[in-house]
């Protein structure tokens, strides 16, 4: 279980995240919505241990972020908003590169399988020759190498075609439900959010988003 207790974060005087509390159960998919600059990426980075909150506490499966940072980190997968892959390497080389550095060993077949599940077939293609959508798929595939318990994705489906979007969506859904992973992701695609998420966290107490989402009958946590 991911438990967030009254965290606050500010870069300047105005706080971006203010006294935020929520908890997520294993197997749940959480959508993060909010306007540009609301602080979605900031929250994900904090949950990914990349940034630290100014106040408050976070724990994952009863491991506190404060005292067990290294251990917690091993169970987190983070897909950055920017595509974080080696442009000059091929898909295969990228997968092997990060497999070597990950705490979980996977063989060539397993890595290839991971890409295929994401519908990324160009195994030996150099990344710089891939389309934007394919790069996004690789961006996700790399993060899944070490089987994270908590998967945080920052706008993972931007620029991905509808068909692939659905494929990735159903893959993530499967991952959450079958592997009991916690998945949190941001998106500006409300249809996608509606279809996939169990709960929606709306950052910035934005009535605009709340109204749109209210029709779906999903649980909305407005913070």
């Amino acid at each position, binding site marked *: 279980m991911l438990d967030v207790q009254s965290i606050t974060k500010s870069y300047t005087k105005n706080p971006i995240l203010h006294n935020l509390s929520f908890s997520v159960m294993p197997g749940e998919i959480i959508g993060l919505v909010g306007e540009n600059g609301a602080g979605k990426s900031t929250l994900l980075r904090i949950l990914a*241990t990349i940034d630290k909150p100014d106040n408050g506490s976070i724990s994952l499966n009863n491991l506190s972020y404060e005292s067990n940072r290294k251990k917690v*980190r091993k169970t*987190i997968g*983070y897909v*950055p908003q*920017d595509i974080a892959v080696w442009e000059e*390497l091929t898909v295969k080389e990228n997968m*092997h590169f990060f497999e070597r*550095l990950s705490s979980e060993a996977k063989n060539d077949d397993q890595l290839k399988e991971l890409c295929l599940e994401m519908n990324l077939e160009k195994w030996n293609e150099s990344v710089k020759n891939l389309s934007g959508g394919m790069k996004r798929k690789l961006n996700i595939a790399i993060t899944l190498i070490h089987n994270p318990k908590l998967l945080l994705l920052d706008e993972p489906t931007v620029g991905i075609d509808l068909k692939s979007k659905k494929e990735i969506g159903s893959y993530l859904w499967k991952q959450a439900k079958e592997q009991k992973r916690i998945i949190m992701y941001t998106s500006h695609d409300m249809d996608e959010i509606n279809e996939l998420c169990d709960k929606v966290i709306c950052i910035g107490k934005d009535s605009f988003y709340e109204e749109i989402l209210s029709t779906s009958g999903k649980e909305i946590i407005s913070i």
Partner: protein
Amino acid sequence: MNDILYTRLLLWKKKVPTMLFWLVFPIVGTCLFITTASTIEEDSRVPIGIVLEDKSELATELINSMEASRLVEVYLYSEQQALYELEKYELDSVFVIHEGFENAILSNKRNKLISSYQTELSFAYSPVKEMIVSLVQEESGRAKAAHFILQMNEEYGNSESFTWNEINEKSKQVQLDENLLNTSFSYSNTNDIVENPSLLSWNTWGIWAIFTLLSTLFLMDWVIREKSMAVTTRFTFIKMTRFNYYLKIILLYFMLFFLFDLISFVVFAIYLNEDFSTGFLFVILTFRIMLCLLMFCLVQCFKKISSFYGFSIMLTLILAVISGAIIPIFPPLNNLMELINPLQAFLNGKLTVLWSIIGLITVALILLRKEKSNA
């Protein structure tokens, strides 16, 4: 370490030509530089004619010293032919070493040992004359000492006897060891300083050090590239600490560099007749450790790759000038320079201890800071 090697090889594979270029750059650069420099030096020697009437050892020795000075190209002619060549301006000047040269020297007669011819175009006449005079003085001093010992030997009937040559060689060795010969000769009209040939052998490694500095800097650019890349966020989630990760990469680069240093060592020994001494390997080793550490620190200060390249070239030029690798500096400054200039210890043929330690401490601090910001 295997994982780091594997992952680095993946990245290196993509830029083999560039990496190879910069790795062999110091070797090829130095060889080209030295070869070109010595060709130019060869071409710029002043041709002088020598008429050797005296066939004594002392006279032969004098000619050898003249040739060894690298200032002049000596042509042995008969007097008639020498003057003919001089008239055609094929020779700068002509010196005649008269019959009885050795005897005159040994009996302290200093007049009319050598006579000379010059033309209105003999621009190098005076410096060459000066050089010959000082060589004669050197040679004659030595010869007289040898002669004196031989005489004593004969007079007192010592059972161990030396030959003239043995004594001459020995006294030369003593002079060399005590650095008495390290005077420079200069042409008054060209400002060219030519060092004693025994010092020139250092220049190969001096020039190599400068080229290596540049190539090391350019090969460290990955630090800036990777710092600005989105992939770095992924390094938060790898199995090793950031401290270890970077330390291992530095180590790997160190090994790669040192491999090419060893190749330079062999190439220079074969191609440029450099000394093949194992002791010097340690000098190279410490120099390389220092370079890897310090350059890694330096590259941290940059965000933009273009400004880093510009800085690298500037730094290389500045150090080349103050190192005296290309322009020799005065020995008394050397100790001070070792404190200021990280290359100086190496140029003096010493182990680079001080700057290696400074590098080590700085790298440790930088990595600890990285580690902390990542925690």
